[in-house]
């Protein structure tokens, strides 16, 4: 304890000194005979037009991606676009023209009236979603730098078993829920943007960052060599929104240029497991069984939501660990009760403000309580997502052809090449017109 005091005293003295200097009068400017007092030179912020340029680039990228995917059916075009976007939005703009992260800004703006949401961010958030509503996830195909990076490294993709693919796919929903929760619990001054904090690739775009995060990013890329786009498929929260809207899309990428001949050549073409086979007709017995199961699942849904909410409520305390106020209060409590040695910069800074500790405790307690409520919502959301997924998988849809799954397909255009009709369209199979292959 004495040793501790000895370590601390200089700090205490420094604090006293600093506050003493503030309390006393300023040393006034000397009356110079012929020296002019200089102005502080401050560089100005990035010009607004450059921000507009980024948004324009995003819009052009979306149009081009849609054109390459749906009209030109050019995998090469999409590939080049991906490289271009990786250079512009990735390495040049350092991954921060990012619709994925903009989810949090939008949520924060809804949650905290103090936060002024720049209109540029609104556009950033909404533009790819509107595109998805009409042409599917073309944003993912060649505009998103995170997608582009993973697209480029997916050199030896393996097929992930469907059950695993679907299960891991739920993670993205959970992540979206968590990101929304934390964004809503943060404040304008102290936002908690987990998507940005846990962005595995931004370190590469900047050629630097925390060593651990670079390691995580590296692991994502290693996995990405064999499992196509692991972040997009299993984590990306924006991909969830895009996928949902893409289901409704008016136009969408097709595997064959016109008619499907059901040649099964494209069956394994998709590295992202997004190609759905034609369905086989059910027997009457199967249909009845399917309906029963659906009914059971629909009954199960509220139970899952309820259980999720109950479990989620219990996670409030651990969720609140990410909140700066709660962490500060925790630290102060540890110090006050003698369970932590010394003080941290944060606790020193807090004590220096002269704010009563009780007030901080109250605020932190209130925050933790709100995190409990938020945790319940998150749990309910997870329950809903699991139940919804089960129901979705149990609803039978009729498919006559090989089709991309509209919510999972990222319009990368890899499957085009596998289609004999496409080969014919490109004139690569001589003496054959698309009409010849028509069934």
């Amino acid at each position, binding site marked *: 304890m004495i040793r501790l005091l000895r370590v601390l005293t200089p700090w205490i003295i420094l604090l006293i000194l600093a506050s003493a200097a503030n309390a006393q009068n300023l040393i006034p400017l000397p009356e110079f005979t012929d020296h002019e007092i200089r102005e502080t030179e401050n560089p100005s912020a990035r010009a607004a037009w450059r921000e507009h340029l980024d948004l324009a680039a995003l819009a052009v990228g979306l149009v081009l991606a849609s054109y390459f995917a749906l009209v030109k059916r050019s995998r090469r075009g999409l590939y080049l676009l991906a490289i271009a976007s990786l250079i512009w939005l990735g390495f040049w703009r350092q991954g921060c023209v990012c619709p994925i992260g903009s989810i949090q800004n939008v949520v924060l703006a809804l949650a905290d009236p103090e936060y002024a949401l720049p209109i540029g961010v609104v556009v950033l958030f909404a533009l790819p979603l509107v595109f998805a509503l009409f042409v599917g996830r073309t944003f993912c195909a060649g505009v998103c730098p995170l997608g582009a990076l993973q697209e480029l490294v997916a050199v030896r993709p393996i097929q992930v078993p469907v059950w695993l693919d679907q299960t891991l796919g739920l993670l993205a929903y959970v992540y979206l829920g968590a990101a929304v929760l934390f964004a809503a619990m943060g404040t304008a001054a102290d936002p908690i943007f987990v998507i940005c904090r846990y962005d595995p690739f931004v370190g590469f775009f900047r050629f630097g960052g925390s060593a651990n995060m670079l390691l995580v990013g590296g692991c994502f890329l290693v996995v990405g060599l064999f499992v196509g786009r692991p972040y997009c498929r299993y984590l990306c929260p924006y991909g969830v929104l895009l996928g949902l809207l893409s289901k409704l899309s008016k136009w969408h990428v097709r595997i064959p240029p016109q008619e499907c001949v059901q040649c099964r050549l494209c069956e394994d073409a998709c590295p992202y497991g997004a190609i759905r086979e034609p369905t086989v007709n059910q027997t009457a017995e199967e249909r009845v069984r399917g309906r029963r199961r659906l009914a059971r699942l629909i009954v199960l849904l509220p139970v899952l939501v309820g259980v999720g909410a109950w479990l989620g409520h219990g996670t409030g305390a651990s969720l609140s660990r990410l909140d700066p106020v709660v962490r500060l209060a925790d*630290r102060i409590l540890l110090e006050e009760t003698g369970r932590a040695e010394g003080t941290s910069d944060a606790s020193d800074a807090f004590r220096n403000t002269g704010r009563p500790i009780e007030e901080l405790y109250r605020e932190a307690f209130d925050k933790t309580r709100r995190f409990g409520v938020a945790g319940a919502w998150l749990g309910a959301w997870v329950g809903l997502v699991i139940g919804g997924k089960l129901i979705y998988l149990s609803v039978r849809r009729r498919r006559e052809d090989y089709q991309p799954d509209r919510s999972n397909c990222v319009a990368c255009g890899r499957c085009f090449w596998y289609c004999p009709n496409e080969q014919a369209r490109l004139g690569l199979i001589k003496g054959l017109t698309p009409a010849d292959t028509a069934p």
Partner: protein
Amino acid sequence: MKTRMPVRPTDLVIGVAILLAVVVATVALLRPGTFNDRAPAAPEESSAAAAEQQIDPALICYEQAREIPVAMRKLRALAVGPDNRIYVGGDQVIHVLDSSGAKQSEITLDAPPRCLAVGPADHAFPGRLYVGMDDHVEVYGADGLREATWDALGEQALLTCIALAEEDVFVADAGNRIVLRHDPSGKLKNRIGAPDERRHIPGFAITSAYFDLAVCPDRLLRVVNPRALRIEAYAFDGDLELYWGKPSAKPDGFFGCCNPVHVAVFPDGRFVTAEKGIPRVKIYSPEGEFKCVVAGPDQLAVGSEDVIADMAIDGRGQVLVLAARAGGLQVFRPKQTGNGAKP
């Protein structure tokens, strides 16, 4: 339907690679420091700098004898007169205490006093009380009755210290950055310390209401040039004889913007200084050589929002320190015990 394929070595490699990557990523995510935790910062070398500002207990040659409470809201001035009577000025009053600290009488003033001086035995009027107000000096007899009010020294004037010799009353005017030499009746004899290149007098650099002086046994006037962090010695006629003082956070120097804020002199010529910023009271030899510390931040009842309002020494070699808001004064006496530095 697809047929089950035998496991190929490449599949195995891929599987192992994926597994490894997942494990590594998980470990990296869970490692502390991944997300810039607001972890307690390790104390670094600047604490060494702060340590330099601490005072080595071996340098402290005084100890607190007692505290004398004074019932005033804001304390401003302190002086010790004949019989070790203590005069404390503040608010709009001067309390006269006997040597034990018991209040004997009080003198009510029209305005808050800024500084005090009591005629010593060798002064023309022993026991006479000179009170510096903002811009003029008021003179009180030993009986506490006002004898005279000297002329105001102008709008700029801000009196911060009065020092007495046999036939001289020196008044430090921080506002006009000058020392005025009067005779006991208030007649101006001469001005000391105005910038004068011919006499190599630089002038006083003063930035706040701290400008102190003392008459020394060598019949030189010691004046603080606060912004220059030094003590200048002037002959009574205004010639600059010598100066000393060096800037340092260590006890041997003066630290901060403008120090020392108060000075006093022992009969043997040793010099006592009081500083703000790092509140500390120290003793120097007549030549300006650092001797020892009377009291440092840990000994003084000067809070972070407070400063030493005044400092004085009494006939018993004790040092009295008055903090503006501490509600009283501290009396320090030379250490009796063998350890520690000798004053």
